[in-house]
């Protein structure tokens, strides 16, 4: 691929296979191909390295829309609300985020606001023990917004730097559950000024085009400020985030690279773009 000398049909077909194979999707792939064709024509370049460079930077620029850092609030606590469809890796990603910030000397509190799924609060409780973070838990079946409310109070009372709120997995097409999620957000917003300061959507790197629909619906319900791309240690490339960031302006903030508490990296657009083509 890197030996291509011109943007001809064979080159475009190979490019298409790589990008679509990486879940970038048809629409965004065609847009990238069109950019490349135009750039090649304008510069008249025949150097494969230069073409590859144009391509990589094109993908990178689509990934750089929006702020890819997490800005901590001026006054404590910074509240991070975490949401996403079932099984994408929310609870585990929260443990990773907590460990990440504790590694920076921050005091972290977790809100076990998934009161629906079997053993959800136990799961987060075990993570809290393992990493030494504080946690607010109610029993299964209680009101998730009430747990978040109590966690906000505890965060203020205990002088916590970062409060991370776990929520139950839910399909973006379930309007009742999406309404429940916006209620959790409103409760937190009313309790702590400026909260939630970050709203992270956890996406599974193996997800296909449906992730765009997920991002769109979650954005509409609770204004997603960033994506946590989990399970990028598999063979899936997670290219769907290129389409999501490009179309919806939602940046990726972190990636998950395994099942341990330290398997987290802040998002690096250049690294990600390069990996798409490897």
């Amino acid at each position, binding site marked *: 691929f890197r030996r291509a000398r011109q943007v001809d049909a064979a080159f475009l077909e190979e490019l298409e296979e790589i990008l679509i194979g990486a879940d970038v999707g048809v629409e965004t792939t065609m847009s990238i191909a069109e950019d490349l064709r135009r750039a090649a024509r304008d510069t008249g370049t025949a150097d494969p390295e230069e073409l590859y460079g144009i391509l990589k930077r094109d993908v990178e620029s689509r990934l750089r829309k929006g702020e890819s850092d997490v800005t901590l609030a001026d006054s404590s606590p910074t509240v991070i609300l975490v949401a996403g469809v079932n099984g994408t890796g929310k609870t585990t990603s929260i443990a990773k985020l907590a460990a990440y910030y504790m590694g920076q000397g921050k005091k972290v509190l977790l809100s076990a606001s998934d009161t629906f799924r079997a053993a959800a609060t136990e799961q987060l409780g075990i993570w809290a023990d393992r990493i030494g973070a504080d946690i607010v838990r109610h029993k299964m079946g209680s009101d998730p917004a009430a747990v978040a409310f109590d966690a906000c109070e505890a965060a203020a009372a205990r002088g916590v730097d970062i409060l991370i709120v776990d929520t139950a997995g839910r399909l973006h097409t379930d309007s009742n559950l999406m309404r429940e999620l916006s209620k959790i957000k409103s409760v937190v917003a009313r309790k702590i000024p400026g909260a939630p300061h970050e709203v992270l959507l956890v996406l599974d790197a193996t997800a296909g085009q*449906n992730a765009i629909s997920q991002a769109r619906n979650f954005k509409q319900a609770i204004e997603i400020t960033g994506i946590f791309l989990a399970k990028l240690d598999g*063979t*899936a490339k997670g290219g769907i985030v290129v389409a999501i960031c490009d179309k919806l302006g939602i940046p990726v903030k972190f990636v998950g690279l395994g099942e341990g508490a330290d398997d987290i990296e802040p998002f690096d657009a250049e690294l990600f773009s390069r990996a798409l083509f490897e």
Partner: protein
Amino acid sequence: AITEKFEGVVRRLRGKAIITEKNVADAMREVRMALLEADVNYAVVREFVKTVEKKALGADVLKSVSPAQQFVKIVHDELVELMGPVEPGIPQPDSPTIIMLAGLQGSGKTTTAAKVASYLLRKGRRPSMVAADVQRPAAVEQLKILGGQLGVEVFSGEGKAPDICVRAVERARLVGTSDVILDTAGRLHIDEEMMMEVKDIARRTEPHQVYLVCDAMTGQDAVNSAKAFDEELSLDGVILTKLDGDARGGAALSVKAVTGKPIKFIGVGEKLDKLEEFHPDRMADRILG
């Protein structure tokens, strides 16, 4: 939807007696786009389009059906043929029948294990489950809670997953359980150690049915994991989960194409009665959008 896309392309077919190469090529382009947007694997789409193109060329445009409809029918029927046939139910050649679930992290195995138990209860069977995920925090607890909701025994224990499974099967034989459902830990198909573990569980318990539990929103990567799990475990079937969402579910076609193994059931919700038998024709409609 694909029928609308076809209408545009195929309007020019009106009054023509047969479908020609040019208008088939246009229609196939639409099909290809629709399938890729539905997350069917790139290579699987390429093969599919070739097959359908052959069938469409030379097909007589039926007088009673619009060319667009006939096109859709050819595509639809080919999808149904590829994703079927379906043998309904879970074969139970022996007692206890051992059913093993495996798959990537978060695909829905633990929930599906309980759904299979619920399904078997409704068939008058007496299943039990085995909590063989000894690494995920509270995984055993999760399955125990689900077992409690159904009144189904959950076997768990100390030590490594293969040993727990072997002991569970031995106990099942003693107490006369009809079916033993093994819930295993989520794992990456590229994790050699974990693939060795799941292979070890299969070797030592000799399951009658091994099902891959796969998330319906999986994209192009579905073929990679499905192929690997099939090579290591020789699957008997696939269960596609979370079809109560709006994922088109192209992974169904990809997985079937690359493993040849039947899709047995679909998960359509979080509650334990949300397991349905797979219908290729309904899936074909869904994939075509």
